[in-house]
């Protein structure tokens, strides 16, 4: 049987889960987003069509600083030497045009993110179970 202290802590945790997002969930959200954006970055870097290397070098992943939000922006920064935006070049290589086939390197990388919501849920469940165990063990 739990002592009063642990019961109260557990009650507090379970209570907070019913009213607001528990810390364990937010941690899971951040961990999964970090991991998957890292994989996305590797995927793009490994598959971006290379001519001069300029497009690959322009690929940028930035953390978004916004209150109550967590995430990243991934894009091809700047222009090439002829003044064409790298983002536009990447889109053309991805989707193709009437004259060239698309490589779909961006679409393929994005497709791998499918199910991220479920992976966040799973990670959160693990974090919460771990926290409950910690509280039970004192």
């Amino acid at each position: 049987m739990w002592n009063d202290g642990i019961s109260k802590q557990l009650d507090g945790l379970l209570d907070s889960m019913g009213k607001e997002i528990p810390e364990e969930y937010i941690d899971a959200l951040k961990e999964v987003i970090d991991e998957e954006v890292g994989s996305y970055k590797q995927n793009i870097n490994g598959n971006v069509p290379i001519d001069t290397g300029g497009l690959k070098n322009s690929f940028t992943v930035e953390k978004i600083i916004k209150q109550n939000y967590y995430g990243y922006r991934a894009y091809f920064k700047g222009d090439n030497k002829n003044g064409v935006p790298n983002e536009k070049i990447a889109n053309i290589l991805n989707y193709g045009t009437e004259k060239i086939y698309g490589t779909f390197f961006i679409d393929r990388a994005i497709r791998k993110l499918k199910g991220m919501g479920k992976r966040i849920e799973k990670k959160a469940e693990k974090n919460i179970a771990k926290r409950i165990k910690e509280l039970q063990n004192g």
Partner: protein
Amino acid sequence: MLYVLCKIGAKVDVMDYGMNVIYDLMNYATEAESDALSGNKSMGLDDMIKAGKGGVF
């Protein structure tokens, strides 16, 4: 441009798109999807990916 952006609030399913990604996606989004992308309603990550749209969250 891909945004992986999650709102932390009452719910963790609100996805947000920047203007650039809206512009890029408008070219091949259906009307309903464009509405979602332009912020007329929220769309979950998996729904967005299922719809084949480039962004996440």
